[in-house]
C-alpha cells in the first residue's frame, strides 16, 4: 500500500512535466494536423541549453526558462516556415510526419556532435533535498517542477483563452476553413502555433533536465510516451492531453513501484492499445470537429 501511494505521488508530480510537453504537441496537431515527431528532440535540446547555461554561467535551470522558451519559440517558427510550409497540401499529413522525423534526427545529430553521447545531468545544490510528508518522501525538485509545470500550463491557458492570437488558434482548431474565411491568417497562426508548441517543449526541457539524466538519444524515449498521451487525450485537445499525461504517468509510476521498473516502460503502450480498441478517437477527442 505504501509503495502504491508513493507511486501515485511520484506519478502525479512527473505527470505535470509530461502534460506540458504533450500540450504543446497536441496544440500543433490541433492547428495544423501535423504530428510533430520532433517534440521530444526539442525537449532534449532545451534540456541541453539549460545544462549549458547552468554549467557555464551558473544560471539555475528554473531561472533560465524564459531564455530557453524564447530561443525555442524562434526555432519552432523557423522549422515551420522552412520545412513545413513548402509542403503541398494533398500529401501534407504523411510528408509532415516524415519531415518532423528528419528534424528530430537533425537535432539529435547536432546534439551528439556538440555534447557527445555521454549522459548529462544538471546537479543543482538542492538536487537531493527532500521533504517528508507523513512517511512519504518527496524530492523538492519534483515538487517545484510540478508547480512550475502547472504555472506554465496556466500561462498557455491564458494565451489560448485571453488573447487575440489564442482566439485565432482556437478558431483554426475548430474549423480551419471557416477561420480562414473570417480573416484568420492561417500561415501566421501555424507558424506561431508551432513556435508556441516548441516553447512548451523548452519549458518542459529545463525541468526534464533537472529530473533525469539525458543524452542526445533520449528523445526516442520521450516521443513514444508523448505520442501515446496525445492519442489517449484525443488529438488536438489540450485539456485531454493534460489528463492523459496524468493517467499515463501515474499508472507507469505505480507499475514501477509495485511490479518492476522494466514493465513500467510498457504500461503506456498497453493503455494505448486498449484505448484504440475501445475509443479510437481518444478520451476527449471528437470524431469530426476539433476540440481544444
Amino acid at each position, binding site marked *: 500500500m505504501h509503495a502504491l501511494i508513493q507511486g501515485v505521488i511520484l506519478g502525479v508530480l512527473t505527470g505535470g512535466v509530461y502534460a506540458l510537453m504533450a500540450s504543446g504537441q497536441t496544440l500543433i496537431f490541433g492547428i495544423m494536423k501535423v504530428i510533430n515527431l520532433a517534440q521530444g528532440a526539442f525537449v532534449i535540446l532545451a534540456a541541453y541549453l539549460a545544462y549549458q547555461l547552468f554549467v557555464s554561467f551558473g544560471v539555475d535551470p528554473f531561472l533560465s526558462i524564459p531564455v530557453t522558451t524564447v530561443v525555442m519559440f524562434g526555432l519552432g517558427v523557423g522549422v515551420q516556415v522552412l520545412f513545413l510550409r513548402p509542403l*503541398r497540401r494533398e500529401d501534407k499529413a504523411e510528408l509532415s510526419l*516524415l519531415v518532423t*522525423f*528528419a528534424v528530430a534526427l537533425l537535432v539529435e*545529430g547536432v546534439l551528439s556532435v556538440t555534447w557527445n553521447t555521454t549522459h548529462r545531468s544538471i546537479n543543482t545544490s538542492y538536487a537531493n533535498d527532500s521533504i517528508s510528508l507523513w512517511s512519504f518522501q518527496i524530492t523538492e525538485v519534483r515538487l517545484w517542477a510540478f508547480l512550475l509545470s502547472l504555472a506554465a500550463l496556466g500561462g498557455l491557458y491564458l494565451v489560448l483563452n485571453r488573447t487575440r492570437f489564442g482566439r485565432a488558434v482556437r478558431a483554426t482548431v475548430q474549423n480551419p476553413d471557416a477561420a480562414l474565411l473570417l480573416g484568420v491568417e492561417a500561415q501566421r497562426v501555424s507558424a506561431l502555433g508551432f513556435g508556441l508548441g516548441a516553447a512548451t517543449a523548452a519549458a518542459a526541457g529545463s525541468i526534464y533536465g533537472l529530473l533525469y539524466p539525458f543524452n542526445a538519444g533520449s528523445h526516442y524515449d520521450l516521443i513514444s510516451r508523448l*505520442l*501515446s498521451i496525445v492519442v489517449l487525450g484525443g488529438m488536438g485537445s489540450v485539456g485531454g492531453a493534460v489528463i492523459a499525461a496524468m493517467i499515463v504517468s501515474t499508472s507507469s509510476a505505480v507499475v514501477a513501484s509495485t511490479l518492476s521498473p522494466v514493465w513500467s516502460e510498457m504500461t503506456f503502450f498497453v493503455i494505448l492499445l486498449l484505448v*484504440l480498441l475501445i475509443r*479510437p478517437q481518444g478520451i476527449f477527442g471528437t470524431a469530426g470537429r476539433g476540440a481544444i
Partner: protein
Amino acid sequence: MSFLRGGAFFAALVALPLFGFEHWVMNLLVFVLIAAVLASAWNLVGGFAGYPSLGHAAFFGIGAYTLGLICKGHEFASPYGPFFWLPVVGLVGALIGWPFAAVSMRTRADVFAIVTITLLFVAQTLAFNLRGITGGAQGLALPVARFPVETFEWPYYYVLVILLALAMGLTFLTMRSKVGLALVAVRADEDKARGIGVPVTGVKVLAFAVSVGLTAMVGGVWAYYQSFIYPQFAVDPLITIAMVLMTFLGGRATLWGPIIGAFILETGQQYLAYTLGGSRFYLIAYALVFLLIMLVLPRGIVPSLVRRRSA
C-alpha cells in the same frame, strides 16, 4: 515490356558477383539488396494502402531474433541450414503483425503512424529487457557461417535476390489484382470504398501481414550475416526511416520506385558512413538529405519521370 525489364534486372543481379568483386563491394551489394527488399515490402502498406507504418523495424528485429533463437535450439550440419528456416521466420512476423494490424488499422493514417512508432520503441525496450530470450544488451550470437572465405557473401546475396524477386513479384501481383485495386481505393477514400462494398479491413490487414512477413525474413538474413545481434541495431529507428525514405525517393505505389530509391540511398548512405566515419556528422548529413528529398522530390523519381514522358 515490364517482364523484359524485370528479366534483364534479375539476370544482371544474378551475374553481378561473377565479376569477382572485392569484399567491400560485395558487402555493399548485400546491404543494398537488404534495403531494396525492405523498401519494396514497406511499399505494400505505406505506398499502396497509404498507411505510413513507422514500426517496420520492430518486425525486422522480430525476424532477426526469431532466426537467432531457431539457431540456438538447433544444430545445423550445413551452413546453408538457417536459410531454409526463413519461411518460418516470415510466418512468425506475419502472425505477430496480423493482430497488431487488426487493432492499429482501426485508426487512420496519422494515428496509425503514432501507434506503429510506439510499437517500434516498445519492441526495442523488450529486446533490451527480455534478457532470457534476447540476451539483452549483451547481444545474441548466431552460429558462425562456415562459407568459403573468397565467396563468403555469395549465399546471403543470392538469398536476398530471391527475397527481392518475391517482394517485387508480390508487388506486381498486387498491382494487377483486385487486392491492389482495393488497396488503392483504401488510400483514395476509405469510407467510400467501404460503402461500396470493398473489404477494406481484410485487404489492408493482409497487406500489412505480408509486408511485415517479408521484413522479418530480411531481418533473419541480416542477423545471420552479422552473426551477432544487439537490440539497438536489430530494432533501429533508422531502419524504419530508411524504408520510408527510399520508397518516397523512388516513388510510392510503383514497382520500381522503392528499388531505385534503395540503390541510390543505400549506396549514398554507405559512402557517407565511410567518409564521415562513426562520427555523428553522419546523422546530420542523413537528416539533411532526408529533408531535401521531402522538399524537392515529394512525389519520387519514377512518377516524375513517367509524367514527363506522357506530357
